[in-house]
C-alpha cells in the first residue's frame, strides 16, 4: 500500500469549490448544446463504448452503432 507523507498540502475549500463549479458549468454548457450536436455525440459514444463492452460480454444483435446520420 502506498504511504503518503504527512502534512501534504491540501487544496483550499475555495479551490475545491471552484473546481466543482467548473464541472457544473461544463455540464450546463453540454446541456445547452444543439440537439443535433448531442445526437452526434451519442453516435460517437456508441462507436467508442460498444467495443469496450464487447470485451466484457457478447453484444446483443441490436447493440451496434446506429447506422444513421445525426
Amino acid at each position, binding site marked *: 500500500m502506498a504511504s503518503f507523507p504527512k502534512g501534504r498540502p491540501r487544496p483550499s475549500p475555495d479551490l475545491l469549490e471552484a473546481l466543482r463549479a467548473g464541472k457544473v458549468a461544463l455540464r450546463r454548457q453540454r*446541456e445547452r448544446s444543439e440537439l443535433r450536436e448531442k445526437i452526434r455525440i451519442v453516435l460517437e459514444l456508441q462507436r467508442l463504448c*460498444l467495443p469496450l463492452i464487447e470485451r466484457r460480454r457478447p453484444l446483443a444483435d*441490436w447493440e451496434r452503432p446506429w*447506422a*444513421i*446520420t*445525426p
Partner: protein
Amino acid sequence: MPSFADALRVLNDMKGSGVVEDYAVAGAMAMVFWAEPIPTYDLDVLVFLPEDEATIVSLAPLYDWAAGRGYKAQAEHVMIEGVPVQFLPAHNSLAEEAIERAVTLEYEGVPVRVVRPEYLVALYLEPGARTLKRRERAAALMESSALDRAALDDLRKRFGLEP
C-alpha cells in the same frame, strides 16, 4: 443513410395511423433532450396501445405494422431507420401520466413527444427498476437546469417514491 429525424418521423406515422394512440420518447434518449448526452444503444418509447376487447396487452399489431414497412423486430426491438427501438406499453399510472404530460419538442423540423425530466427521474426511482445505472441517470437529471423540482416532489409524494 437515414437520419435520426427519419426514425422520429416513423414514430409520428405510427401515431397517425393509429397503431399507437400516443407515444413519448423515454429512457436515455429522452435524457439527451434535457441533459448531457450519455451512451445508449436503443431508443425507448413509451406507448399507449389502442384499446380493444383483449385483456392481455400485445405488441403484435405494432410489430406487424412495422414489418409491413420493412422494419424488422429482433430481441424485442424494432429496427427503424437504423435505430433499434423498444416499445414499452405504459405499465402503471406513473407511466401513463408520463405519456399524457410529455412535451412536444422539435428535432430537425420533426415534432417528437418526449417524457418530461421530472417523469424520467420518477420512472428511474420506481422500486422495481432501481439499478445503479438508473439511479445514476436520475442523479444526473436532478442536476439538470431543465428539471422542475416542485413537480418532481409532487410526483414523489403522489407515487410514493423514495429519493
